[in-house]
């Protein structure tokens, strides 16, 4: 009964994360391969689908709470499902933003070779994949690794900022394109944060403690245990 319904909800969330992940990949690929159609797809088709899923999952979660009064693990799973639901929708929003900026940049001359942004994208997608897998398997270790991986993304973001500011200072005509690049990087960095949130939710369910915003502790913990 309740277990079945929670399981179905989780399955839908997994699909949702997959959709969001693909949106991220597609929006950056659209930029790299200068594929305007792909960018449009992200904005029009995928974003709509994601929003619909968010609404459906929210309504379902509310019904489950009302009808089944979940307790213990079930309760934590439901609460995190609600949080993940919101976060994934936001990932979609950010991916949509990236696609929008890609549409601006594609017809215009490239400001600089894209190195960091694809690297960030790769890292972020790995984080999303890992957080998805840790959701499916309740894999604590994997979740912690996701949280730690965010540092790399943050660093890359700072690098992009520095680089692009450099270009924009030398050539003020490139400011319009530069800012878009910075914004893309920023959105990707936020997506990384949201992936971290998902991983923190997984930890809440498996360890029944809140692991919110404890990146430093986790880094230390993993270093002690000899990972990384």
């Amino acid at each position, binding site marked *: 009964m*309740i277990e079945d319904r929670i399981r179905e909800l989780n399955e839908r969330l997994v699909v949702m994360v997959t959709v969001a992940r693909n949106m991220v990949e597609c929006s950056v690929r659209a930029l790299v391969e200068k594929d305007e159609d792909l960018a449009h797809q992200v904005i029009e088709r995928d974003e709509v689908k994601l929003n619909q899923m968010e609404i459906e999952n929210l309504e379902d979660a*509310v*019904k489950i709470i*009302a*009808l089944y*009064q979940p307790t213990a693990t079930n309760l934590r799973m439901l609460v995190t499902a609600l949080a993940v639901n919101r976060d994934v929708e936001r990932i979609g929003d950010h991916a949509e933003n990236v696609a929008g900026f890609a549409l601006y940049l594609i017809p215009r001359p490239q400001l600089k070779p894209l190195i960091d942004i694809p690297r960030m994208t790769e890292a972020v997608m790995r984080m999303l994949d890992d957080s998805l897998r840790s959701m499916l398997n309740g894999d604590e270790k994997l979740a912690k690794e996701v949280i730690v991986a965010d540092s790399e993304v943050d660093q890359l973001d700072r690098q992009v900022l520095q680089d692009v500011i450099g270009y924009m200072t030398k050539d003020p005509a490139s400011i319009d394109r530069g800012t878009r690049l910075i914004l893309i990087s920023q959105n990707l960095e936020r997506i990384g944060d949201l992936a971290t949130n998902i991983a923190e939710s997984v930890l809440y369910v498996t360890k029944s403690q809140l692991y919110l915003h404890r990146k430093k502790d986790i880094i230390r913990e993993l270093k002690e245990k000899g990972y990384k």
Partner: protein
Amino acid sequence: MVDAKIRIENLNLWFGPTQILKQINISVTEKQVTAIMGPSGCGKSTLLRTLNRMNDLIENCRREGKIYLDNTDIFSPEVDIYELRKRVGMVFQQPNPFPMSVFDNVAYGMRIHGIHNRKIISEHVERALLDANLWEEVGDKLRKSALELSGGQQQRLCIARALAIQPEVLLLDEPASALDPISSAKLEELIEKLKTNYTVVIVTHNLQQASRVSQWTAFMMLGELVEFGPTEQIFTAPRDSRTENYLRGKFG
């Protein structure tokens, strides 16, 4: 459009001068669970007992309105009340197995309706006990006295006894209120299973049980039907403020 197994139309009921049920209109959907909930004394048990005409046994009981079982008014003179009770079975709040063996308890219904073939009875007893999730526990002890079973087992025995005559509707009057939480949970599992084959109407004052188990919920107060609708809707966004207050525990 799913069929209504039972349609209660403008039902009013009095015990002597007191009106117990006021203008009740409910449509019970076939092969689903309909819960009737409300504070003590709201008339929910009385309503349930009207569905198999057990209220006929009470003196000074006056009734207006109709109740259709598959499009036939159960109060019309052509209706054979013994047949009605065969089609509409009932399980009571306090388990009440007869002081006989488990086998004889379950076989009782068949015997009073004229079935005496031992083979047929045996088969139906086994099937009923399986349907009631009791076969595993008593299958090898059918000759044991029913009174030696635990409370939860006795209640499931009463369900098996009702199921043995293959009713179409099962009326449950607060079936879990006399049971411990584990037996109560087992009973809920059983009800989930039963709705595949039977239409179930359950009276309960346990809100959580009603929400877990039913697809339709009726909320009654002081003899009136305050609200009736899909359980999901009643529990997430009730339309009547009285329902809302009841769900939030403000009274009853």
